C-alpha cells in the first residue's frame, strides 16, 4: 500500500466513524414511528438520465435512486463526508495519474442484476460521447484522451478508461488532478445499464424521461411520477445497504408557492424544507424555540458577485472604462457589504471579501481559515476611492471628473428586491466615487442574455454555485479563455493563469493551497470581479426527523438514512 492510499484509508476510516455518529443512537424500537414515510417538496426533473443531469433537482432525486462510487453525508459540524458506496476500495498510483476502483460485490440493480465495472466504464464513456453533448462532460476531461474524443479528434478507444475485471476498472489522467475523486463522486459518473438504454432506443422508448424503463441501484426506486406535480419513491429491496434504510416511501410534491410550502411545514405535512423565502426565518423562530422545528443554517457553496465587462473582443463596456484595474477595484471597494447583507439578506448571509466561499477545502484545510479575505486588506489600503478611480481615469486618458462618468448595469425580470439593490448600488457609487449608474431593465432572461452577449453593460450582478468541494471550482472561472469566461467578464491575466495551472497539477496540498491564495489575491487586487456575499441556506426539519444530512455539494438533502421518531 503506497503512501497516498494509506492516507486516504485513514481519512475514510475517520469518515466511517463520523457517519456512525450521524446515525440516530440505537434506542428501543418503539421510539420510532411505525410509518416511515417522508413528505417533501421538489422541483420536477427534466430527465432521469444520470449522464445528462443538469440541475439541483435532478441531482437530488438521482442521488437517492442511483448510486456511484461514493455517497456524501454531512457531519455534525455540517462538513461533507464522502463514504465508499458503490466502490469497496480504490488505489491511486504513485504518480497520481492512475485510479483503480474495486466495486462492492453485493451491489445490485433493482432488477437483481449485479452492478459491474462495465456499467461504470459504459457510463464514463457515454458522458464524453460527442454525439450526446452532456452538460457535465467537461468534468471527465482530465482523463487522458477524453477531451480529444469529445472534440471529435481522438478515438473512443484511446480514452484511458480500462475495464480490468467484473468488479475492477481504472482511469488514467493526463495530468494529476487533486480534485478528480471529488468530480467522479458526482451523479454524471454513476453507472448506467447500457443494455437497457440500447433496448429503449431500439423500441423507440423514451430513456431520458420514462422511469418505467429504468432500473435503480440506489436506496430508493421511482414508483410513480406525475409530470410537474409529484413523484413517489419506495425503498429499493435490492439495495446493498438496505438494512440502514428505514424510510419505506417518499412522497415528493411540486409546491411552487412559498406560502404554501410554509403552510405545509407548519401543519406537519412536510418533513423538511430548504427555506426559499427568508421572511419566514423570524416568523418560525417561535417553532424553533418551542421545539417543533429543528433549524440550522449552512453556507451554500455559492458567491454572488459583480462581473465587469473586460472581454478582449469588447471595448470595456459602454463607458469604455472597464478594462482598467484601478477603476474596477474602486467600484468593487465602493460597496459596503455589511450594509448590503443587513438590508437585502436580513443579515442572514455572509458578506464576501473574497471569491472562494467558506467551507471549500484543499486536502483537509479550509481555504478561508488559511488566509484573510483579500478585499479586507485592500479596503484598509485604499481609503480614498475617488482618488483611486481618478487615477484609473487618468490611465485610460479620460478627460473629466467621476461625475462625468455614467456606468450601465443590466438586470432582468426586476422584483422589488433587485430594484432596491440597484438603487443602493447607485447610491453607493455616487457617495463614494461620485459616478452615475444607469440601470437597464430587461423583461426576461432571454433579452437580458442578448444584451449581455452584445456587451451592453459595464457590470452586472450574478451568482455562481460551485460544482465540487475544491476552490478550483470557482478559481477556474477566471482563467484566460475558459468556457465560462463569457459570464465572468473575461478576466485575463497571465500571472493568474500560471498560478492556477501550477496549482491544478500540484500533488502537494499545502503548495496548492498557497497557490490558490496567491491567485485569489491577484484576482481581487486587479478587480477581476467584485464578490458581494456568500449565501446561507436555511434548513428546517420537523422535530421527529433524525439522520438527515444536508451536504454542501450534490444532493441538497441526503435523506436515505433518515428515521422518523414517534410523533
Amino acid at each position: 500500500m503506497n503512501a497516498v492510499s494509506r492516507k486516504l484509508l485513514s481519512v475514510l476510516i475517520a469518515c466511517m466513524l463520523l457517519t456512525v455518529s450521524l446515525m440516530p443512537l440505537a434506542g428501543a424500537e418503539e421510539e420510532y414511528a411505525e410509518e416511515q414515510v417522508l413528505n417533501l417538496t421538489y422541483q420536477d426533473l427534466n430527465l432521469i438520465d444520470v449522464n445528462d443531469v443538469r440541475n439541483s433537482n435532478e441531482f437530488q432525486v438521482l442521488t437517492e435512486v442511483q448510486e456511484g462510487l461514493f455517497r456524501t453525508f454531512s457531519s455534525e459540524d455540517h462538513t461533507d463526508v464522502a463514504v465508499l458506496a458503490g466502490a469497496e476500495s480504490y488505489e491511486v498510483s504513485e504518480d497520481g495519474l492512475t485510479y483503480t476502483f474495486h466495486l462492492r460485490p453485493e451491489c445490485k440493480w433493482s432488477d437483481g442484476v449485479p452492478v459491474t465495472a462495465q456499467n461504470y466504464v459504459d457510463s464514463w464513456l457515454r458522458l464524453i460521447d460527442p454525439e450526446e453533448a452532456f452538460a457535465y462532460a467537461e468534468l471527465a476531461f482530465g482523463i487522458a484522451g477524453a477531451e480529444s474524443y469529445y472534440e471529435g479528434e481522438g478515438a473512443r478507444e484511446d480514452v484511458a478508461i480500462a475495464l480490468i475485471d467484473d468488479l475492477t476498472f481504472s482511469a488514467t489522467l493526463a495530468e494529476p488532478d487533486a480534485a478528480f475523486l471529488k468530480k467522479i463522486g458526482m451523479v454524471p459518473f454513476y453507472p448506467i445499464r447500457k443494455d437497457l438504454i440500447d433496448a429503449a432506443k431500439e423500441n423507440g422508448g423514451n430513456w431520458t424521461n420514462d422511469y418505467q424503463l429504468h432500473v435503480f441501484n440506489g436506496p430508493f426506486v421511482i414508483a410513480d411520477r406525475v409530470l410537474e406535480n409529484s413523484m413517489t419513491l419506495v425503498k429499493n429491496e435490492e439495495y446493498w445497504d438496505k438494512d440502514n434504510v428505514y424510510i419505506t416511501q417518499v412522497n415528493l410534491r411540486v409546491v411552487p408557492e412559498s406560502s404554501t410550502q410554509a403552510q405545509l411545514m407548519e401543519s406537519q405535512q412536510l418533513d423538511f424544507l430548504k427555506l426559499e423565502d427568508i421572511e419566514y426565518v423570524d416568523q418560525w423562530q417561535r417553532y424553533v424555540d418551542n421545539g417543533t422545528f429543528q433549524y440550522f443554517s449552512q453556507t451554500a457553496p455559492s458567491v454572488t458577485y459583480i462581473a465587469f465587462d473586460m472581454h478582449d473582443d469588447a471595448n470595456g463596456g459602454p463607458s469604455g472604462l472597464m478594462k482598467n484595474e484601478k477603476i474596477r477595484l474602486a467600484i468593487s471597494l465602493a460597496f459596503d457589504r455589511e450594509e448590503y447583507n443587513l438590508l437585502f439578506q436580513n443579515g442572514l448571509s455572509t458578506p464576501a471579501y473574497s471569491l472562494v466561499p467558506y467551507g471549500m477545502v484543499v486536502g483537509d484545510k479550509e481555504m478561508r481559515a488559511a488566509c484573510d479575505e483579500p478585499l479586507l486588506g485592500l479596503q484598509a489600503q485604499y481609503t480614498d476611492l475617488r482618488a483611486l478611480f481618478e487615477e484609473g481615469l487618468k490611465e485610460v486618458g479620460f478627460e473629466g471628473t467621476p461625475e462625468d462618468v455614467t456606468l450601465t448595469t443590466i438586470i432582468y425580470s426586476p422584483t422589488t428586491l433587485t430594484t432596491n439593490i440597484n438603487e443602493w448600488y447607485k447610491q453607493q457609487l455616487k457617495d463614494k466615487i461620485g459616478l452615475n449608474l444607469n440601470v437597464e431593465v430587461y423583461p426576461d432572461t432571454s433579452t437580458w442574455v442578448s444584451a449581455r452577449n452584445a456587451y451592453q453593460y459595464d457590470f452586472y450582478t450574478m451568482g455562481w454555485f460551485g460544482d465540487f468541494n475544491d476552490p478550483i471550482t470557482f478559481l477556474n472561472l477566471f482563467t484566460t479563455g475558459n468556457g465560462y469566461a463569457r459570464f465572468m467578464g473575461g478576466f485575463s491575466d497571465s500571472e493568474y493563469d500560471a498560478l492556477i495551472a501550477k496549482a491544478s497539477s500540484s500533488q502537494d496540498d499545502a503548495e496548492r493551497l498557497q497557490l490558490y491564495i496567491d491567485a485569489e489575491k491577484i484576482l481581487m487586487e486587479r478587480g477581476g470581479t467584485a464578490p458581494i456575499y456568500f449565501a446561507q441556506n436555511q434548513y428546517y426539519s420537523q422535530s421527529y426527523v433524525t439522520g438527515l444530512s444536508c451536504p454542501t455539494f450534490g444532493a441538497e438533502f441526503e435523506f436515505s438514512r433518515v428515521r422518523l421518531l414517534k410523533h
Partner: protein
Amino acid sequence: MSFLRYALKKLAVMLLTLYLIATATFFLLAATPGDALSARVERLPETVTQRLYEKYGLNKPIMERYITTMKGLLHGDFGESIIYQGETVQSIIRQKGPVSARLGLQQMLLGVTIGLLLGLLAAVKKGSLWDYLVVVFSILLISVPNLVFALLLQQVFAGQLRLFPVIGWPKENIWLGGWEYTVLPTLAGCFGYIASYARLLKASMLDVMNQEYILTAESKGLTHREVILHHVLRNAFIPIVTYLPMSLAMCITGSFFIESVFSIPGLGLYYVNAVAAQDVTIVMGETVIISAIYIFVIFITDILYSIVDPRIRIKGGKR
C-alpha cells in the same frame, strides 16, 4: 341547402383561423429573444452549447423550422417537448387535461348555479337591499384575483382549521374520487363564475322585463311569479346559453394560479411554465389544440343558433 353551405363556409373559416393562429404563434415564439435551450446553455461552455443546438435542430433557419412544424401539424404531430424529452403535447394533454377539466367543471357547475340564483334574486327584488347586496358582492368577487382567494382559503381552512388537505389532487378515480382535495380549489375558482353569471342574468332579465310582451303578459292578469318563470326567464336565458359553451371550452385550459397554489397537476400551470421555458413544440401544440376546441365550440354554437333562430342565418351568418 343554404344551411349546408352556411355550415361549410363556417368550417372553412374555422380551418383558416386555426392556420393563422398556428402561424402567428410560431412566429411570435420565434421572435422572442432566446429559445428553449438558452436557459439551459446559459452556464455551459461554448462547444457544448453548439452541440446542443445541433442536437435539437434549433440552429436551422427559421423558415425551414416553420415548414417542418407545419408539416407536423398536418399529421397531428406536434413534436417532442424540448424541456421534457419524450413527452408530446398529446401525452401531456392526456395526463393533465382531465385534471383541469374536472376542476374547471366543478368550479363552473357550482359558480354558475350560485351565480344564476343570485342574479335571479337581484332582478326579481330589483332596487331592494338584496339587489344592492348582490351587486356589491359580485363587484367584490370579480375584482379580487382568485390567487388571493386561493391563498386565503388555504390558510384558513387547510392551515388553521385543518378541515381539508393543504395541497394535492386525487390520483385514482380522477373524476369522482378524493373530493376533499377538490373543495378548496373549486371554491377558489367559482367566484368568477358567480360574479359574472349573476350580473349577466340580472342585466338580461331586466332587459326582458322592459319588453312590451311582458307588459302584455301582466295585463293578461298573470301573476308576477308566472310572468317571471314563463316569460322573463326563458327569454333572458338566451345570452346565458351563448356564454355557457365558451365557459365550458375554457374549462379544460385550467387555471394557473389555483393549480400553482394547490399543487394540482393541471394544464394551466404546465402551459404557463412551458411558455416561460420557451418549450416551442408544447406551446405550439397546446395553443393549436386549445384554439381548435374553442373554435369548434363557437362553430357548434353558431350552427345551433341558426337552427334555433333562423334570422341569424338569413342575416348572413353574423352572430
